């Protein structure tokens, strides 16, 4: 009898939920909208429609980033981890903006946690399919791993010339890892019930890449494409770029 009791409580420690078909579950749609400050992000091939904190005028031609390892935390502090959650948001592909997360256990969730980037394990192993397929142009090599996020475009130099800017954030281990955990308190409780569908709307702000704590001056730094201190500094900025604007139950 005591032994049976032991087994019924297996893989259910106090702080995590597993996907469990005995419980009720619903869907949560993640909707991502990319912005540059208060303006919606619009990719363009000429002109400068944005300005960074340093005062550099710029335009964006590409914006792509990974959001992964999604966890929902309920009002009791219990976490549910969405298995195999890897989403590549690509400004040039509107179909990437809406992601449906299924089989979320019923509950009232107050916080969402994500990893900005691809976790270190998947940088060195695992299936490279779907959003993790290297065909998406977000993978270097097994040695150096994924490009966790990238922004590309052009800016106006102080002498008036047009020049390219390209920031590829990679590095999954050690002092210069660009991986950043983000914990977001939801503006209202996400209520998941049996076969319900809710939407959590995210905002990703390109301006945050260049503002604080490290103000980026394009005139001095316009190119990051390898693991190192520059990528790590921008990742500190970038870690503040994601927020939740609304929850609809």
């Amino acid at each position, binding site marked *: 009898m005591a032994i049976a009791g032991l087994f019924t409580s297996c893989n259910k420690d106090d702080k995590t939920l597993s996907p469990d078909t005995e419980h009720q579950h619903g869907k949560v749609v993640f909707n991502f909208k990319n912005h540059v400050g208060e303006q919606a992000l619009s990719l363009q091939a000429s002109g400068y429609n944005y300005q960074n904190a340093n005062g550099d005028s710029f335009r964006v031609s590409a914006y792509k980033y990974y959001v992964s390892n999604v966890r929902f935390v309920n009002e009791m502090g219990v976490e549910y981890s969405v298995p195999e959650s890897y989403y590549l948001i690509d400004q040039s592909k509107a179909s990437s903006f809406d992601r449906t997360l299924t089989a979320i256990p019923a509950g009232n969730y107050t916080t969402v946690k994500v990893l900005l980037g691809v976790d270190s394990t998947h940088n060195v192993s695992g299936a490279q399919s779907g959003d993790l*397929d290297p065909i998406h142009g977000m993978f270097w090599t097994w040695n*150096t791993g994924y490009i966790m996020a990238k922004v590309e475009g052009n800016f106006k130099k102080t002498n008036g010339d047009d020049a390219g800017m390209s920031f590829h954030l990679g590095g999954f281990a050690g002092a210069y890892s660009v991986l950043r955990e983000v914990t977001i308190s939801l503006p209202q409780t996400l209520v998941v019930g049996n076969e319900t569908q809710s939407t959590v709307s995210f905002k990703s702000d390109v301006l945050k890449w260049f503002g604080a704590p490290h103000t980026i001056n394009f005139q001095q730094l316009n190119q990051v*494409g390898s693991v190192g201190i520059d990528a790590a500094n921008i990742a500190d900025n970038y870690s503040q770029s994601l927020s939740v604007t609304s929850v609809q139950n």
Partner: protein
Amino acid sequence: MNITASTLRNFLLAAFGTSLLLYSCQKTKETSDEAATDPTLDNIVFETPNGWPAPVYNFEDNRLSKEGFKLGRALFFEPMLSSDNTISCGSCHQPFAAFAQIGHNISHGVADRIGIRNSPSMFNLNWHSSFFWDGHVNHIEDQPLAPITNPVEMDESMENIIKKLEQSEHYRAMFKDAFGSEEITDRKIFKAMAQFMGMLVSSNAKYDKYVRNEAGGSFAQAELDGLHTFRNKCSGCHTEPLFSDFSLRNNGLSLVLNSQGTVDLGAGSITPSDSSRYYKFKVPSLRNLKFTAPYMHDGRFTTIDEVLQHYSSGVQQTHNLDPLLTNGISLSSKEQQDLKAFLGTLDDESFVTDIRFKEPR
């Protein structure tokens, strides 16, 4: 000292037992390495696909072997070949991108340095008569030296590379397996790499199955129309079955300043006093375009649409413009759509997923 039989027996057992232990550990490692590789490497052979011309390079002076191929593959993906041990050949020549680099018009080398040219795709190299966009190297065994020593690419010397490789027991063993001794020389490094690079053959696209009348080779109407248009308008430079004649030509690209603030003279940069080679670049193969955007020597065109627009309405009358392009290539919008459909039949999924060519983990 009196050595008893039992002492001798115990001693022999200990010695023999230890070596057995060592042998079995080593064997396990070897087994797991073997498990990760493709068994077809056992009978490694370079084959000329039916109907293709004879290759320029055929391993006559570089006996192809499984060990040589594996060493070449290891070196190709080895970041120690760069000065800061971060960049390998595979960094800019990605197997899943037909050995180009996805999403990069110009690639970065060590310390985020950039050059002026797009990383070219790599396949069917044994049929190439010259290498690089400007054709300045004509032997595959001489090719790796240029990116290795280029300060904006790998910024390393062969001398340093050899020193680094010599420190690795694993590499010394691989050189021994491939060439019979642990001695590491630059000539052996290049021969091993040529064994790997030369085996990168892409000949199983839908087009190839069509030509061979095989299952999976049945063309849709747009693809057939595209093949017809292609043969009329493109095959002067992009000759079947390799889809390039590998000659150096000026295809009328507008002259723009590169990251060094100059205009790329192409083949003319080798002999700048001879303007007859200005702006001529090696005709690239049109195979595997799905995996190798962006296009041209500086990656200026992100889509095939842009390339077709260039040929139909964007050809510039620059010095040495190829005679075949004097008036551009008139292409109706239907012809452009058909061409795109046909070019899609040159994408070889089996090549970009071939486990023999993947980066070892």
